[in-house]
């Protein structure tokens, strides 16, 4: 296996030429998103350069504190993203989401890095990229789960009022929505497991193969990360919704929707 070919600046810059193709198509199809394309490309470039610099520094000066800091800022960012898509949640619900993402993310990272791979969880080379994938997917899952939960509650207001008036416990009214939203949030992960390896080689595996890892090692890592992601999504959505639905009713058994 060959080591990956280093890109020099001119080689690297030439990839941006492909964006001209996208721009041309957009112009032709009268899609008025050329500004977004430019901004997105610039943001991506700057964000990744920064991430690269930070990672270079951390790899050169490994310290448990840096790894921890990186993981916690990823959790904070994930939390922020979930909330920005779902404003109007009550305080206890928000706290529940934060705790759920952190708890399930850290638990799965700990098991994967410390248990399965069997190295220190403070090793930045493993913990940061793997942690990023786990937390990023947990974020998408929680976002989808909460969105489904809140929007189905909003559209079922009549049903909820009727059941409440009939003397049904709030818990019994809300639990079916929790279960159904958890299912919705899990499906994309399960579906991507179904098509994995046939339709595409997943990102992490591609990266490992490019950098010279044996394909068999790469698939083992890929399978491991998929199972880890599935667990983190399932746990974080389940915990978020469990904390969340309990925050929607008070001691007088009144359901309070935003």
């Amino acid at each position: 296996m060959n080591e990956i070919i280093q890109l020099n600046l001119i080689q690297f810059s030439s990839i941006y030429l492909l964006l001209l193709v996208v721009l041309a198509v957009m112009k032709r199809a009268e899609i008025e998103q050329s500004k977004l394309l430019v901004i997105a490309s610039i943001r991506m470039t700057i964000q990744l350069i920064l991430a690269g610099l930070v990672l270079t520094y951390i790899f050169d000066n490994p310290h448990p504190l840096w790894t921890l800091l990186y993981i916690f800022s990823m959790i904070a960012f994930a939390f922020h993203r979930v909330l920005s898509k779902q404003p109007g949640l009550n305080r206890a619900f928000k706290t529940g989401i934060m705790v759920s993402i952190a708890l399930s993310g850290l638990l799965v990272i700990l098991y994967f890095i410390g248990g399965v791979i069997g190295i220190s969880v403070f090793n930045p080379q493993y913990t940061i990229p793997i942690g990023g994938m786990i937390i990023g997917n947990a974020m998408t899952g929680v976002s989808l789960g909460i969105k489904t939960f809140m929007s189905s509650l909003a559209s079922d207001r009549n049903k909820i009022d009727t059941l409440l008036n009939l003397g049904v416990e709030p818990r019994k009214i809300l639990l079916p929505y929790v279960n159904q939203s958890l299912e919705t949030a899990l499906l994309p992960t399960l579906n991507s497991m179904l098509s994995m390896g046939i339709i595409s080689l997943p990102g992490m595996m591609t990266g490992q193969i490019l950098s010279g890892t044996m394909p068999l090692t790469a698939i083992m890592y890929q399978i491991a990360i998929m199972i880890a992601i599935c667990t983190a999504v399932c746990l974080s959505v389940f915990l978020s919704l469990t904390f969340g639905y309990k925050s929607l009713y008070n001691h007088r058994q009144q359901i309070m929707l935003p």
Partner: protein
Amino acid sequence: MPSILIKTQSLAFHHMIKYPDLQIQEEKLTFIKGPSGTGKTTLLKLLNATASPSAGTIYLNDSSIDSIDAVSLRRQLLLCGQTVYLFDSSIRENFIQYYQYRNLNAPDEETMKKYLDLCTASFSLDTKCQTLSGGERQRVYIAIFLSFNADVLMLDEPTSALDEATSRKLFENLKKYMAETHQTLIVVSHDQRLIETYADAVIDLEVIKEQTQHAAVNTALTQKEA
């Protein structure tokens, strides 16, 4: 002498609605009327504790409803709300689903039919609820609530989608049934003719509101004189 089942004291909701002190008698048909915005629907929600008052107390049989578990209170004071919700399935299936939510076995078909007849909704139990008209759905909805036989049934605008003849028939049946079973009925309605014919007692929130305001003015004057 009929006993007083529910009374309220200095009840207010979010400082927008201030209720006069009310009394509702047991085993009677009490109508609540008043223009929109006087808090008729809100009053029903306060009574079954799906909303909490910002001030004041509601007494049920002389004990504050705050001391009663909210879920069992709602089973005792059953509120059949203004907005009808029925599952998209047969009438029979609707009975079954609602009883399941209450952890109860659904009544047998004879009993279901009895309540449908009472509510002038004598449709086949196989009828899909999504094929019924607004007024028909309303009557099926009331029939389901009636079948739970709560101590108190509260209906919010039960005749809003019904013609006059059907409304009269419904109230004729309801009044007779409630008297036989010693249940109390509280109805929010605009329908003056229904009120005149069937009410044992009427609470007119507008009139009482004006009186309260007068009383307040009088008190102010008295205080000034003093």
